[in-house]
C-alpha cells in the first residue's frame, strides 16, 4: 500500500496573528510557520502504517512557495520516505488544491490519501471531500480512529452528535482529526537523515490545471474586540451580577 499525505505550511498555531494595516490579509512575513496541526496527525498515521508493515511507501506533498520545503523536511524527519513540492506563488483555493493533488495521484497511484481535516489558516475544511469526489474514491472525514486490514478500512468519524463508525475499502481519501494520534517529535538524527531524503520540486504550471481564484478577498479586518470585563470578589457577587446586572439567569 502506497500512502500519500498532503501537508500545508501555515502560521504556527501559537502565534497571535495580525491583520495587515491595508486590510489585504493576515501578516505572514517574519512569523513562525509550521506544519498545519491536523496534517501532522496525517503524517503520524502514515508513518505508523509504514512501521506496522501496512504501507510500502509514504510520500508527503505540499503546494506553495519555496519555503514550503521546510514542512516537507519536517514530514520526512517524522518518518515519511520522500516528498514533492508543487511550486506556486499563489494562494490556491481548496478546489484548485484538490485538482493539483489529483494530478499527482494520477502519477503516483497511491492507495490511500491522508490529510488534516482543515487548515488552521483559512479554516475551509473542504479539500479532502472535494478530492474524494473528483477521484470517486470513498470519503472519510474527521477521523479519530483508523484500522486497515487487507483492502478493508474501518474508521471512526468525529461528528457533532458523537462518533460515527464506517467501513469502506481502498483506495480512499481520509481527513484526520487531532484526536487520531499523537504526532511524534522528530529526533535530531532523523532531522539529519531527512535532509538526504528525496524532495522533488515541480512547477504547478507543468500540471496543466486551471488554478485561477474564483473568490476575491475584498478585505480582511480584525474581529470586534470584547469590552474588558470585571473581576468579582466572590461567588455571591458573581451570582448577583448575573441575576441583576447582566440578567442572564
Amino acid at each position, binding site marked *: 500500500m502506497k500512502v500519500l499525505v498532503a501537508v500545508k505550511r501555515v*502560521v504556527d498555531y501559537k502565534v497571535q496573528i495580525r491583520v495587515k494595516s491595508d486590510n489585504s490579509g*493576515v501578516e505572514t512575513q517574519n512569523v513562525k510557520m509550521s506544519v498545519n496541526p491536523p496534517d501532522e496527525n496525517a503524517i503520524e498515521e502514515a508513518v505508523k502504517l509504514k512501521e506496522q508493515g501496512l504501507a510500502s511507501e509514504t510520500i508527503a506533498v505540499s503546494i506553495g512557495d519555496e519555503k514550503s520545503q521546510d514542512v516537507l523536511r519536517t514530514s520526512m524527519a517524522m518518518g515519511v520516505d520522500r516528498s514533492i513540492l508543487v511550486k506556486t506563488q499563489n494562494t490556491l483555493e481548496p*478546489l484548485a488544491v484538490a485538482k493539483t493533488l489529483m494530478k499527482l495521484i494520477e502519477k503516483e497511484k497511491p492507495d490511500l490519501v491522508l490529510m488534516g481535516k482543515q487548515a488552521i489558516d483559512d479554516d475551509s475544511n473542504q479539500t479532502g471531500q472535494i478530492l*474524494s469526489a*473528483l477521484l470517486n474514491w470513498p470519503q472519510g472525514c474527521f477521523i479519530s480512529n483508523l484500522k486497515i486490514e487487507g483492502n478493508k478500512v474501518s474508521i471512526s468519524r468525529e461528528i*457533532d452528535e458523537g462518533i460515527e463508525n464506517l467501513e469502506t475499502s481502498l483506495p480512499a481519501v481520509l481527513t484526520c482529526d487531532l484526536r487520531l494520534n499523537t504526532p511524534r517529535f522528530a529526533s535530531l538524527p532523523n532531522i539529519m537523515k531527512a535532509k538526504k531524503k528525496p524532495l522533488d520540486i515541480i512547477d504547478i504550471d507543468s500540471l496543466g490545471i486551471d488554478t485561477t481564484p*474564483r473568490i476575491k478577498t475584498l478585505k480582511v479586518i480584525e*474581529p470586534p474586540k470584547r469590552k474588558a470585563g470585571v473581576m468579582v470578589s466572590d*461567588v455571591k457577587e458573581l451570582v448577583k451580577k448575573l441575576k441583576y446586572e*447582566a440578567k442572564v439567569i
Partner: protein
Amino acid sequence: MAVLVIAEHDNSNLKSSTLNTITAAKKLSDDIHLIILGSNIEELANKSKVVHLLSKVITCDNEKLKNFLPELSAPLISNLAENYSHILAPASTFGKNLLPRVSALLDITQISDVIDIVSNDTFVRPIYAGNAISQVQTNQKINLLTIRPTSFEKSEDSGGDASIEEISFVDTDLKTIFINREVSKSDRPELGNAKIVVSGGRGLENSDNFKLLYELADKLNAAVGASRAAVDSGYIGNEYQVGQTGKMVAPELYIAVGISGAIQHLAGMKESKVIVAINKDLEAPIFNVADYGLSSDLFQAIPEIIKELDLLNQIES
C-alpha cells in the same frame, strides 16, 4: 432566482441548524426551497412544509439515504443545482461533510462558514480561528455556502405553507457501509442551541469531577461543553468540544470553568453575550474575554454557586 437549503435532520425532525440556515437564505431570496434527503421522511416533510419562509420542500425518500452518506447525497443535490442561485447547508459536521462534494461535482468554489451576507455575491467569514474576518466576493453562477448556525436566528417552524415535491433517488456505486453512530443521550439542551452553556476544561482534573458541572448545568437548564484539553484527556466525549475544530456556540451566558482560554477555544465561544470565567490562575487568557471573572478554586466555587442559585430560587418561589 430560488435558493436551495439542504436540511440537516435525523429522519424525524429538522435540526435547529436547518432553521438558522433558512434565515440566512432569506437574505438572498424570497423563494426558498428546502431539500430533505432521508429515509421514511414523509412525516418529516409534512412537518417541514409549515416552516416559515419556505415555498417548496423537495424530498428524496430512500432507505439508502438513512445515514446521510455524502457520496449518495451530493449527486442528488448537484443534479438540481442549475435551478438555484445559491445552495446553502449548515456549517455543522453534516454540512462540512457534504457540500464540498457538491462543489467538486459542479466545479464551483464553496465559501465555508459564512457569518454574514452582505449581498447576493458578497459574504463574510472568519479565518484563523476567528482572529480575522474576511469579506469575499464571487461571480460564480451558483454560490455554495455553509452557514454558521450561531450567526443567524432560527426561522419559525410554523406558519408556512410550502408545496412538497418528490424527486426520485439515483443510486451511486457506493463502497462505504454505515456501521453505527455512538450518540450520547442527554436531557440537557443541545449545545449549539442552548441559552446557557457551562463548559469545563483541564482544571476539572477527571471525568468524575465533570459531575459537578452537570449539576450546575441542570440548575441553570444549561448545555454542557468542554475544551479540547478536557476531551483529549478523556474527561468527556468529543461531541462536547467547543472551539475552532469543535462546535461554535453563542449563548446568552457562557460559563468557562477551569478553562485557560487557548485561541482555539475562544474561537468557538467568544460570540457569547455574557462570558463568565472561573479559574484559579489569574493569568489565564480566558479572563481577557470574560465579562465577569472569578479567580477561585472551582471545587469550592461551583458548589457555592449551586447553593446561591438554590437560595435565589427559594426567594423567588
